[in-house]
C-alpha cells in the first residue's frame, strides 16, 4: 500500500499569511505525528495524535500552531500569521499505535518557506 503522503511538497508564503499542511497516514495507522526539521533546531517533535485526539501537544512552539485530525485519518497542521522562523521542513509520520508498534513511518515532508 501507499506510504505516508504530505501536501503540498513545497509551499512559499508571505510573512503574516496562514498556511495549512496536510498529512495522509498509512491506512490503518491510528497514531500520527508531526515533526519540524530546520537548520537551527534539527528535528523537533510537534504533536502526536492517537485517533482524533492529541494527548501530547507539548511540542507546538506557539499558539500560532494548531493541528487537527478527522476521521482517524487525515491531519492538518495550521500555522497562523507565519513568521520567517517558521521556515522549515514539516514531517508527518504514522504508526500502528498499539502496544509494541513503535515504528514510525515518515512522509517526504512539506518544505515551507516564509518570505
Amino acid at each position: 500500500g501507499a506510504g505516508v503522503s504530505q501536501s503540498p511538497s513545497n509551499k512559499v508564503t508571505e510573512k503574516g499569511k496562514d498556511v495549512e499542511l496536510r498529512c495522509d497516514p498509512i491506512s490503518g495507522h491510528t497514531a500520527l505525528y508531526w515533526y519540524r526539521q530546520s537548520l537551527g533546531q534539527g528535528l523537533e517533535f510537534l504533536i502526536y495524535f492517537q485517533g482524533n485526539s492529541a494527548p501530547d501537544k507539548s511540542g507546538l512552539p506557539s499558539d500560532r500552531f494548531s493541528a487537527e485530525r478527522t476521521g482517524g485519518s487525515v491531519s492538518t497542521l495550521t500555522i497562523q500569521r507565519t513568521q520567517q522562523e517558521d521556515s522549515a521542513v514539516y514531517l508527518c509520520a504514522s504508526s500502528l499505535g498499539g502496544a509494541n508498534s513503535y515504528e514510525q513511518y515518515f512522509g517526504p515532508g512539506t518544505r515551507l518557506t516564509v518570505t
Partner: protein
Amino acid sequence: AQSVTQPDIHITVSEGASLELRCNYSYGATPYLFWYVQSPGQGLQLLLKYFSGDTLVQGIKGFEAEFKRSQSSFNLRKPSVHWSDAAEYFCAVDKSGSARQLTFGSGTQLTVLP
C-alpha cells in the same frame, strides 16, 4: 532533560571501508533507541531499534548497533560501506517508552568516496 548527542556532524569514508557513527544519550532510565536514515529529498527511514534484551541489534541494509549502558551509547556500525549509504543519519530516543515522542540527535552527514 533527556538529550541525544551525535558528536560527528560530517563523516567521510571510502566505499568498502567500515563505518561507525556515534550516538550518546542522557536519560534517567534505559530508553528506547532508534537509528533513522534520511536520503536527499526523502523521508526518514528506520534502520534499527533497541528496546531491551540483546545489546547488539541488527537492522536493514547491513547496519547494526550496539547499546552500551555503561557509556550511554548506541553507536551505529556497518562493516563495508556502499556508495548508496551516503545520507544523513539520525539517532533518536523515545521519551515515553512507547515511541510516542522521539527526541532526535542533530544528525551525521555521511559522504562516501568512490
